[in-house]
C-alpha cells in the first residue's frame, strides 16, 4: 500500500540518444490503477522499468511512499512485476515458481505454503501447482505469473503488457479478472499497454505517453471526451477520430469551419470566443465517428449540420455500420445506425453533431478550448440544447 511519485524523471540510454523518458512528473495515489499507454517505443515500458529498478534513472527522483528509491536495489523496493512473456522458470513447477522469491527472502516454509495456496485459490490454479510451465496453456501461465506477484504481497504491482500474448477472447476475460484482483487486493497497480481498449477498460487513470513525454493524464472518460492535443485525440478511441484541415471563416453567427466549398460546418456559439483569434487562419477540426449520423436516423435533441457525401466502403458490425465517406479530397469515417441505406458508390446525407466538434491549433497541436457540449455543460450545468443549423 503506497503512493508512487515520479519527480521530473528522465532516462537517456546513451549520451547522444534521444530521451527515452522525458521529464516524467506524476503522483500516483495509493490504490490507483494507473495505465501507461502509447505507441511502441514511446517510453512507457522504460518508465515502468525505472520504477522496478531494472533501468537506472538518468535524472530526477522516484519515491515509493516517502522512500526515495533511486539507489535502492530492485529486490528491496517492495514491488512485484508481471512480464509479457510471463518469465516463468521453465525447470520449476508452479509451486516452486511462486515460492522462489519467498524462499530467497528466508520466509518460513509454513508461511510460504500458506501464501502460495492462498494465491492459487484466488486465481483458481490449485490443481496446477505440481505442473511445469510447459504443461500449461497461455492463460494458465499468465495466472501463475500473477500468482508469483501476489504471494510477494508487494506495495506496488507492475504489469508490462501482460495480456499481449493471449488470444482475443482470453484477453477480455483476463482483463476483467485483473480489475477484480485490483479491487480485492487494494494495492497500487501500474500497468503498461499499447492497447487503448485495455487502458480504457481497466484504468482509474490513464497516462498517454508519446516520445517519452506525458501527453495527457486523466480518467478514461476525460481522455475520450476532452483530448488535450492532437496526439491523444488520434490515439484514444477506435476507430480513431476524423481530422480535417479547415479555415475559420466569418464572425458572430456566421462563423464557420471551411474545409471545401461543399464541406463547411457552423461553429456552435459556445465555441466562438475561443476560435475568434483564429479567424482567417487554419485549424484542425476533429470529430469522432460516432458523432456523425445517417440523416435518416439521427438521434433527437442534437444540434446538427448536414452534409452530402459519397459512400466509399461500408463495414457491417452488427450493432452499427462503419461507413467510409468522401467529400472531394476529404475522406472520413462514420459509425451509423445499422438500418442505414448507405451503399458503396451511392450518395448519402449525413449530419454532424456539432456540439462534439474538437478544434486543434495546427502548430502547437494543442486543443483550442473544449468541445461545445462540454463548455455548455460546464457553464449551464445541464445537457446540450437541440437546434438545427444548416450547413
Amino acid at each position, binding site marked *: 500500500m503506497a503512493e508512487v511519485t515520479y519527480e521530473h524523471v528522465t532516462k537517456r540510454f546513451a549520451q547522444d540518444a534521444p530521451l527515452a523518458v522525458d521529464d516524467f512528473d506524476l503522483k500516483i495515489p495509493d490504490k490507483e490503477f494507473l495505465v501507461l499507454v502509447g505507441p511502441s517505443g514511446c517510453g512507457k515500458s522504460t518508465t515502468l522499468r525505472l520504477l*522496478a*529498478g*531494472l533501468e537506472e534513472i538518468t535524472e530526477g527522483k522516484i519515491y515509493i511512499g516517502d522512500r526515495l528509491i533511486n539507489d535502492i536495489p*530492485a*529486490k528491496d523496493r517492495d*514491488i*512485484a*512485476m508481471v*512480464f*509479457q*512473456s*510471463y*518469465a516463468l*522458470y*521453465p*525447470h520449476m513447477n508452479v509451486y516452486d515458481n511462486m515460492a*522462489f*522469491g519467498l524462499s*530467497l*527472502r528466508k520466509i518460513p516454509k509454513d508461511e510460504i505454503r500458506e501464501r502460495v495456496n492462498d494465491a492459487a485459490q484466488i486465481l483458481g490454479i490449485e490443481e496446477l501447482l505440481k505442473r511445469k510451465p510447459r504443461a500449461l496453456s497461455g492463460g494458465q501461465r499468465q495466472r501463475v505469473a500473477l500468482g*508469483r506477484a501476489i504471494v*510477494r504481497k508487494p506495495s506496488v504491482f507492475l504489469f508490462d503488457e501482460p495480456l499481449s500474448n493471449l488470444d482475443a477472447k482470453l484477453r477480455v476475460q483476463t482483463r476483467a479478472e485483473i480489475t477484480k484482483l485490483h479491487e480485492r487486493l487494494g494495492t497500487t497497480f501500474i500497468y503498461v499497454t499499447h492497447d487503448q481498449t485495455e487502458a480504457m477498460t481497466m484504468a482509474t487513470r490513464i497516462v498517454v505517453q508519446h516520445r517519452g513525454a506525458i501527453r495527457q493524464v486523466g480518467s478514461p472518460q476525460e481522455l475520450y471526451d476532452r483530448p488535450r492535443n492532437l496526439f491523444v485525440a488520434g490515439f484514444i478511441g477506435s476507430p480513431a477520430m476524423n481530422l480535417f484541415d479547415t479555415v475559420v471563416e466569418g464572425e458572430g453567427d456566421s462563423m464557420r469551419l471551411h474545409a471545401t466549398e461543399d464541406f463547411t460546418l457552423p461553429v456552435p456559439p459556445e465555441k466562438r470566443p475561443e476560435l475568434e483569434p483564429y479567424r482567417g487562419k487554419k485549424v484542425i477540426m476533429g470529430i469522432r465517428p460516432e458523432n456523425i449520423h445517417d440523416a435518416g436516423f439521427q438521434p433527437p435533441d442534437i444540434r446538427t449540420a448536414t452534409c452530402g457525401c459519397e459512400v466509399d466502403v461500408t463495414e457491417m458490425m452488427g450493432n452499427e455500420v462503419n461507413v467510409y465517406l468522401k467529400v472531394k479530397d476529404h475522406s472520413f469515417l462514420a459509425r451509423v445506425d445499422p438500418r442505414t441505406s448507405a451503399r458503396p458508390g451511392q450518395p448519402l446525407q449525413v449530419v454532424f453533431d456539432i456540439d462534439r466538434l474538437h478544434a486543434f491549433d495546427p502548430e502547437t497541436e494543442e486543443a483550442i478550448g473544449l468541445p461545445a457540449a462540454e463548455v455548455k455543460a460546464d457553464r449551464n450545468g445541464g445537457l446540450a440544447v437541440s437546434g438545427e443549423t444548416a450547413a
Partner: protein
Amino acid sequence: MASLPKTSDRPPTVLVTWLKWLGSRGMVHVALISLMILWSIPTLVMLISSFRDPSDIASSGWWNVFANPFDFTIENYRNVLDARGMWQSFLNSLVITIPATLLPILVASFAAYAFAWMRFPGRNALFLLVVALLVVPLQMTLIPVLRLYVDLTPGAELPSFDLPVLGGTIGGGKLFGVNSFVGLWVAHTAYGLPFAVFLLRNFFGALPRDLFESAYLDGASDLTIFFRIVLPLSGPVIAALVIFQFLWVWQDLLVALVLLGDPDLSPMMLTITNLVGSHGTQYQLLTAASFISMIVPLGIFFALQRYFVQGILAGSVKG
C-alpha cells in the same frame, strides 16, 4: 449386378509395395547402411584382431575368423593390462581427464555468464579476445608453456594412493609444473577455455532476458541466478561440452608427451605410442590397447549423445 474389381482397387502385392518403398526412401536407407558398414569395418577389424593369437594375425587375414569363429583368446588383453602397464595408464588417464573436463567447464560457465549477462567495462573487447584465442594453434604454445612449467615446478610431490582390489595407484607426481597431474589439468583447462566460453556464452545469451529480470526482482543475486536458473537450464549444452572436452583430453597425446616425462604418470595414449616404439609392431597388443582406450569415450558418448546433438544446435543456431 456383380462387377469385377478394377485393377486399381486390388490390394498391391508385396513386391509392388517393396519397390515403391525402395524408390522413395529405400535408396537413402541402403546408402546410409552401406556407408555405416564401410565406416565400421576398421573398428571391427581392430576388435577381431585384438582377440586373435599373434601367430594367426601374422599368418592369415582377419576374415578367416569367420571360418572357425570360436578360436579367440583374451591373452592379448591380459598381457597388455598387466605386463605393459596399461591398467596403470588407464587409471592415469582417468585421473587426468575427469578434472581436466570439469575444471574448464566450471570456469568457462562462470565467465560465459559474466560475458552474457553482467555489465562491466570492456566486456565485448574481452570476449573478442577470448574468441580470438580459438585461432591460436596449440603447438605454438608448447615450448613457452614447457619453459614456464620447468621454472614453476616445485620439489614437493602430490600424495599417491594404492588401490586395494583393482591394483595400481592414483595420484603421485609433482605438485605442479612438469610431471604433474595438476600442471596437466591447468594446461588442458587453458586450452579448452576459449571454445567452452564461446559455446556457453552463446547459449546463456539466448536465454530470455525476462527470466533474469524476474529472478532479480525476486531477490536473487547473480550467484543464485547462475546456480538455480542458468545451470539447470543449460543441461544440453553442458553435456555437449563434457563430450567435447572429455574426448579431447582422453585422446590427447601431444600435451601429455611434452609435459609428462615420468612413465608412471603416462596416460593411455602415451603408453600405446611407446608400445609401438619399443617392441616393434605387435598388432595383437596394439589392437587390444586401442580397444581399451575406446571403451570410456564410447560410453560417455552413448550416455550423452542426445544432448550432444541438442547442444551443437543450441550453440550454433541460436547463437
